[in-house]
């Protein structure tokens, strides 16, 4: 198993930590992982993205051009990464602010109202966890238990009290993810 994932959105949406949590969770499950941020001037203010790879084998490059899964949280990222999903791959996106929805027919397309849901849960910061839940529902490459363990690695001690909320968000995400199109 090798899963190559791009996670992309605006800065502040928590795309980098989403990737890190995935990787930490992978480590808990004794997988090989790599995480690679986009860095550069575009990091500031504008968009942010990272590549997370989770695999049973040693990982060659932490940077790839095509992905098994694209997790997309804004329109520019949609425009940039839709074409990079491998045929048969998955795109999963938050509906908020998306004007042009994915059009490819050779990939699985999932939509989530994660931002909306986060507002409902009174914490916009957990939007990324909701999306993560959605992804794990569609591709259950890591068990929820290990994700929770991973979380406790990413979060500094003083935030550990937030873990139950995050868990809740992940679970909620698993519920609300909708498959729009199946490859």
């Amino acid at each position: 198993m090798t899963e190559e994932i791009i996670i992309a959105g605006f800065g502040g949406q928590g795309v980098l930590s989403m990737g890190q949590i995935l990787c930490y969770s992978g480590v808990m499950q004794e997988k090989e992982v790599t995480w690679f941020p986009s860095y550069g001037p575009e990091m500031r203010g504008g968009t942010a993205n990272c590549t997370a790879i989770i695999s049973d084998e040693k990982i060659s490059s932490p940077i790839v051009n095509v992905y098994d899964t694209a997790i997309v949280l804004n329109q520019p990222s949609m425009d940039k990464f839709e074409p990079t999903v491998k045929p048969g791959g998955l795109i999963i996106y938050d509906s908020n602010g998306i004007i042009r929805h994915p059009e490819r027919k050779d990939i699985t397309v999932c939509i989530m109202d994660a931002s909306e849901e986060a507002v409902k849960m009174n914490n916009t910061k957990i939007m990324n966890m909701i999306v993560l839940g959605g992804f794990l529902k569609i591709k259950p490459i890591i068990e929820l238990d290990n994700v929770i363990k991973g979380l406790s690695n990413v979060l500094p001690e003083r935030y550990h009290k937030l873990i139950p909320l995050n868990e809740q968000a992940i679970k909620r995400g698993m519920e609300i993810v909708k498959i729009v199109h199946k490859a």
Partner: protein
Amino acid sequence: MAKKGDIIIDIEKCKGCEVCVVACPKQVLAAANEVNAKGYHYAIKVNAECIGCANCAVVCPDAVITVYREKK
């Protein structure tokens, strides 16, 4: 009586910094609830008090405001 003025904001280029908002002597400006394609809560006019003083435009870092003032 203050002159009458008006402004045009290039909202797609606006970065929603709100520097114009605090610079306006007439509280003409505010951040929109909506975001533009770049994800910014762009500036919008919220009243018609504009006197064309250009304060907003002068401090707008992205030069996205054009200011008009009635000549007479």
